[in-house]
C-alpha cells in the first residue's frame, strides 16, 4: 500500500504534513505529490492498495486514519471517500470515478494531468507518463520547424496578453546574437495561483517547455524569473532541474543532439510590476524593476542588450504538450482562435476553491456549474485581478476565450477567477483592486503614478458618502487617460476593474453620492424596529454619519436629521431590524 499525499501549498496549509508523519508511524509508505485541483478538499490522500484502483480521500484528519485504513482493508465505504481512479482492479463499485464527479466532469486536464499524481521532481515518473516526449521530438526537427509547429498550434501567451507564442519566437529567428530564453514565473495577480500549482506539482513540464523553447530560438541559457513569495515552487524547481540535469535532459549535449541548455533560477524581490517584460529584464540585470517604453521590444533588445524571449509558465507547459502530441491534438480543444485549455484559479465567495483546467470557449455559466455556485447567489466573476474586468449575470452565456472577451471589452488576464456574491459591495471591491495598483505602480509615468492614486482617493471619498456627482465624472475621466497614456501594461490596465464595475454597477456608486440620496428617497426613512433590535452595535459601527445612537445591548435609534439613507445599517443588521419606511406625502 502506498499513500500519495497532496503536498502542494494547499495541502501543506491544510495539515497534510502531519498526516504524512502519522502514516509513516503506522508503517505506510507515502509519496509526495502536488495538487489535483480541489484545494477546498485538502488534505487529499490517494491510497493505492496492491493493484486495485486508487481510492481518493478528502478533508482527511489524522484521527480518521485508523478508520480509513480499516475501511481499505475490507473494501468498506468511508464518508471521506471523494472518488476513485480507473488505474487497476475494479473495486468500490458505489464510488464514482474522479472524471465523473461534478468538479471534474467538464474539465480537460491535458496540462495538469500529472499534478497530484507524480512526485513533482521525479524525472523517471515524469518520463513514464509521457514527459520529455516533446523534447525528444523537437531535437529531431529543425529549429524553424519547431517554431512553425508552435505557430500552427495557435498557442497564445497565457500570461494575459494572449500574443501568438510562435510569432514571438519567430521574431528572433534571424537574430544576429544568441538570444536568452526566460520563463516568467512572477505570478503577481491577487487570486492567481495557476502558475504556482504547475511549478509545485509538475515543474518538469515547465522545464521541458523552456528547454524546447531554448532549442527553437537557439538559446544557450534559460532563466526562470520566479517571485520569492513562492518558496515551495522554488525548491521543487531547483530539485527538478538538478534531477533533469543528472538524467541528461539539461546541460551539455542534451540526449546527444548537440544542443546544450542550462537553466538558472532568479528570484524576484516583491514587485508586481516585475511581471512586465521590460521591468523583469531590468530586475534580472540587477537594476530597479521599472519598465521601459517599447520599442525596443525585448525580442530585439532585451536582457543585457541581447534578443530575449519571455514566456509564461503555463505557455511553456503547453509547448511541452504540443511538441509531444502535435499541434493537431492541441487544436482539438478550445476554439479556432483560442485553441487549447486554460487553467483558472477559483477563489472568492464559494466553497469549491482551487484550480480547474477547461477548454477555451466554455461558458461562464458552465464554470459556475463546476464551482457549484447557484445562479441566484452569483453576483459577479472578476477575471484577471487588478488588471482585469467583471463579468456580471448578463454575461453568463459568454464564451470564455480571448476574442469573445475582447468583444465585450473584458480581458482574460492570467486566469484568476474571483467569484463575488451579493454581500460584496462593488465600490469596495473596486477600491481594493485600485489600492493594489497604487501600491504596485513603479512611479515612473505621470498617469499611473498620479492617476491611480487620485482614482483611489475618489473611490474612497465615494465610499465615505462624501462624493458628489462631479466626482464620478472626474473618476471616469482619469480612468480613460490612465488607460490610454500609461507607459506600460500595469498602468494601461489599472483602470480596467473600475471601468467594468462602472459599466455594470454604476447604481452602487450613485447610491452613495451626496445629493443623489435625498432626491431618490426624499420620503423614505430608515427605522430600527425596536422589538427586533438586540443592541449588537453593528449598525452604528458602519454608519458613515454617526447617526445611530444607543448603548450596547440596548435598543438603538437612528437620528433622522443626520441620516443620509445610504442603507449600510440595513445591510449589516444580523437580525434584519432596520426597515426602510416609505411615507405618504402629507397634503
Amino acid at each position, binding site marked *: 500500500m502506498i499513500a500519495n499525499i497532496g503536498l502542494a501549498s494547499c495541502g501543506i496549509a491544510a495539515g497534510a504534513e502531519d498526516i504524512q508523519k502519522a502514516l509513516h508511524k503506522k508503517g505506510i509508505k507515502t509519496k509526495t505529490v502536488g495538487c489535483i485541483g480541489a484545494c477546498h478538499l485538502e488534505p487529499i490522500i490517494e491510497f493505492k492498495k496492491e493493484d486495485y484502483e486508487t481510492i481518493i480521500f478528502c478533508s482527511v484528519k489524522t484521527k480518521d486514519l485508523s478508520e480509513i485504513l480499516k475501511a481499505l482493508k475490507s473494501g468498506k465505504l468511508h464518508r471521506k471517500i471523494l472518488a476513485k481512479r480507473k488505474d487497476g482492479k475494479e473495486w468500490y463499485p458505489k464510488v464514482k470515478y474522479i472524471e465523473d464527479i461534478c468538479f471534474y466532469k467538464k474539465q480537460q486536464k491535458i496540462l495538469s494531468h500529472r499534478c497530484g499524481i507524480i512526485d513533482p521532481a521525479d524525472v523517471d515518473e515524469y518520463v513514464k507518463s509521457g514527459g520529455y516526449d516533446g523534447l525528444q521530438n523537437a531535437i529531431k526537427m529543425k529549429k524553424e520547424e519547431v517554431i512553425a509547429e508552435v505557430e500552427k498550434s495557435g498557442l497564445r501567451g497565457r500570461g494575459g496578453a494572449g500574443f501568438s507564442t510562435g510569432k514571438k519566437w519567430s521574431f528572433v529567428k534571424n537574430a544576429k546574437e544568441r538570444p536568452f530564453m526566460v520563463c516568467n514565473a512572477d505570478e503577481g495577480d491577487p487570486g492567481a495561483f495557476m502558475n504556482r500549482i504547475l511549478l509545485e506539482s509538475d515543474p518538469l513540464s515547465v522545464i521541458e517547455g523552456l528547454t524546447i523553447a531554448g532549442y527553437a530560438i537557439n538559446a544557450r541559457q534559460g532563466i526562470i524569473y520566479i517571485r520569492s513569495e513562492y518558496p515551495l515552487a522554488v525548491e521543487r524547481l531547483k530539485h527538478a532541474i538538478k534531477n533533469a540535469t543528472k538524467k541528461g535532459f539539461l546541460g551539455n549535449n542534451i540526449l546527444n543532439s548537440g544542443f546544450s541548455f542550462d537553466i538558472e533560477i532568479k528570484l524576484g524581490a516583491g*514587485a508586481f510590476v516585475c511581471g512586465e517584460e521590460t521591468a523583469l529584464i531590468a530586475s534580472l540585470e540587477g537594476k*530597479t524593476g*521599472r519598465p521601459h*517604453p517599447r*520599442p525596443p521590444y525585448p525580442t530585439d533588445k532585451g536582457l543585457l542588450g541581447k534578443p530575449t524571449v519571455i514566456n509564461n509558465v503555463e505557455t511553456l507547459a503547453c509547448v511541452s504538450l504540443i511538441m509531444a502530441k502535435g499541434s493537431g491534438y492541441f487544436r482539438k480543444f478550445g476554439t479556432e482562435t483560442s485553441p487549447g485549455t486554460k487553467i483558472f484559479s477559483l477563489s472568492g465567495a464559494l466553497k469549491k476553491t482551487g484550480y480547474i483546467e477547461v477548454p477555451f470557449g466554455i461558458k461562464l455559466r458552465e464554470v459556475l456549474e463546476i464551482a457549484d455556485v447557484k445562479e441566484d447567489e452569483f453576483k459577479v466573476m472578476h477575471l484577471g485581478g487588478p488588471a482585469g474586468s467583471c463579468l456580471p449575470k448578463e454575461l453568463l452565456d459568454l464564451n470564455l476565450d480571448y476574442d469573445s472577451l475582447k468583444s465585450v471589452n473584458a480581458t482574460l488576464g492570467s486566469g484568476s477567477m474571483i467569484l463575488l456574491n451579493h454581500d460584496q459591495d462593488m465600490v469596495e471591491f473596486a477600491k481594493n483592486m485600485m489600492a493594489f495598483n*497604487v*501600491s*504596485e*505602480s*513603479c*512611479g*515612473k*509615468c*505621470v*498617469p499611473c*503614478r*498620479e*492617476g*491611480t*492614486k*487620485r482614482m483611489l*482617493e475618489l473611490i474612497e471619498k465615494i465610499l465615505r458618502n462624501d462624493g458628489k456627482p*462631479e466626482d464620478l465624472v*472626474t473618476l471616469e*475621466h*482619469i480612468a*480613460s*487617460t490612465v488607460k*490610454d*497614456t*500609461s*507607459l506600460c501594461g500595469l498602468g494601461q490596465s489599472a483602470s480596467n476593474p473600475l471601468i467594468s464595475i462602472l459599466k455594470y454597477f454604476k447604481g452602487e456608486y450613485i447610491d452613495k453620492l451626496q445629493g443623489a440620496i435625498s432626491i431618490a428617497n426624499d420620503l423614505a426613512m430608515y427605522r430600527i424596529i425596536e422589538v427586533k433590535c438586540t443592541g449588537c452595535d453593528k449598525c452604528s459601527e458602519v454608519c458613515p454619519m454617526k447617526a445611530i445612537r444607543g448603548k450596547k445591548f440596548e435598543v438603538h435609534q437612528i437620528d433622522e436629521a443626520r441620516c443620509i439613507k445610504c442603507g449600510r445599517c440595513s445591510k449589516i443588521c444580523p437580525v434584519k431590524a432596520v426597515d426602510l419606511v416609505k411615507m405618504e406625502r402629507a397634503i
Partner: protein
Amino acid sequence: MSTKTIIVDGNEVKTDKEMLIDAIKDIGIKVPSLCHHPDLKPWAVCRLCIVDVDGKIVTSCNTQVREGMKILTHSERILDERKMNLKLILANHPFACESCIRNGYCELQKLAEEMNVKKEEIQGETRNLKSDYSSLSIVREPNKCILCNRCVEACDKQHISILEYNGRGFKTIIGPAFDNILSNTPCVSCGQCALHCPVAAITERNQTREVMHAVNDPTKHVVVQIAPAIRVSVGESLGLEPGTVLTEKLVTALKMLGFDAVLDTSTGADLTTMEEAHEFIERLKNNEKERLPLITSCCPGWVNYCEFFQHDFIKNMSTCKSPHMMLGALIKTYYAKEKNIDPKNIVVVSIMPCTAKKNECNRVEMKNDLMRNVDYVLTTRELASMLKMTGIKVDQLQESAFDNPIETASSAGVMFGATGGVAESVLRTAGFMLTGKKLKKLEFESLRGMKGIKIAEADLDGKKIRVAIVHGLGRTDDLLKQIKSGEVKVDLIEVMACYGGCIGGGGQPIPTTKELIQKRMDAIYKIDDNSELRTSYENPNIQSAYYKFLKEPGSDISHKYLHTRYFTRDPYNP
C-alpha cells in the same frame, strides 16, 4: 538621415528628423512636453507629448518617424488627455508660484498657461518632504519635483550619478540614495541638474539678499566682478536675443544697483593665463614627467571631481586659483592699497555662470590674511533676478567703463568662458614666454567648438604643444582613461565640467541648450575678433600689477595669493 514623408494634421510633410517630436517641431508645431530636453535622451514619462499616430496614442519624444505615418497633433481626445496628465502633475505640486525662484521661467507654469488648465477638480494627498539646504551651491525641494528624470540623466552624463529614484509609486522621491542630503554625497556642484530642471525642484542657492544687504551697508566697499560668460548670456534672462553682448551696459546697471566698483573677471583670467603659462613652461623645462600633462584648474566643478574621483591626476593639476579667486585676492591687496581702503571693509562679489563657485569661495585655501578672496558668488540667474527686482532695464542704459586700477582685460581673458578658451589664452602667452616674440598667428581654431574631446597639436612658432580640450565630466572621465592607458599623449589638458565651457554652466540662464550655447560661444569669439588687446601678457593693467605687487609669475607673492592646493577626498565620506 534619410528623408521620409509623413502626414501631419492632414498635410504632407517631408522630414529628415529621427524622432517624431522634432519632425513636428520643424513644421512649426511645438508639442507640449515636460520631461523632454533636446540635449538629453527621451524618457517618455510625462505623457504630455502624446500624439495620435494611425489611431494609436504614442509619445512623440521617443517614437521614430516612419514613412507614411498619419499623425494628429491636437485631436480632441489628445488635447483632453494631455490636459488630464497636466492636471495630475499639478495636483501634486505646491501652489507657490508667487514666491518660487522659477516664477516666470518655469516650464510647468508655462504649460499650465498654454494649455489653459486649472487643477481644482483633482485634490488629494500631496507630498510633505523635507527640503535640502545642506549644500552651499545647490538646493533641493522635492515637493516641487515632477519626477521628469532630467536631473538624474544630467548627473549620469557627468559620470557622478548621485541622483536616483528612491522608493516606488506615489511615494517615489528623486534624490540621493537612502534619502541622503547633498552634503553627504560626492556632488561636485556643477549645477547641471539645476540647469535642466523644468521647475524649482533643484536650484542654485540664492544669495541675492545677502549681497543686497552688503551693498546697502554704508561701511562696506562692495566690489563686483563679472565673468566672461555673463556679458554674452544674461540678456537671455531679460528677454533679449541670445548672444547679445551687454558688457558696458552691465557695468552701469551694477553701479545703479549700488555696487561701489565693477571689475572684469577677464582681468583675473589674464592673471591666471600668466601664472599658468609660466607654470606650464616650468614643468616642460624641468621635464616634470609626473606632473605632465598639466591640467587646468580654473573649473571648480572639475577640481571637486578630481579630488573625489580622479586621485591619480591631482598631481597634474595646475596650482593656479581660478580667475575670479585671483582677482578677489588682488582686490583685497593690490586694489585696496591703490584705493587706500581697509581690505577688511571690502566685500568681493563674483557674478558667475557657475554654481560650483559658491562652494569654492568657502574653501579654506581660498583665504589670504584671514580674509576670503571672494565673499559671495551669484549666478547669472540671480543677477537677472536682482535687475528685475529693481526694474533696471539693462539694454536701455548708457555704457560705463570698468573701474581702475584693473579696468582693461584682453580678449584672451574673455575667451575663458568658452571651451578651448583657457588653453588658447595660455598658448598665446606661453608662445611669447617661450620665443620672446608675439606669435605670428594668435588663433587656434582646432581648440574651438562644441566637439566633446578635441585633441590637437598647437604650433607655437616652432615649438609643438599637444593639447586636449574636454568639456563635460563624463567625457573627462573617458579622456583620462585614455591618458592612463597611454592611448592619448598630450602636454596640456583643459577641462570644463559643463558642456560648452562656462557659457553652459550650472548658473546660466534657463533654458540652456546646445543651440543657445553655440550662440553664446559665437559672441565670445566675435569679441576676440574685434579686440585690439588679444594677449594677457600685453595687458598694461596686468603688467602694472606684477610690477607693483606680484613681482613676476611664479614668485613667492604670486604663490601666496594666486595659487592653491588640493586634497584627496573620499566619495563615500565627503
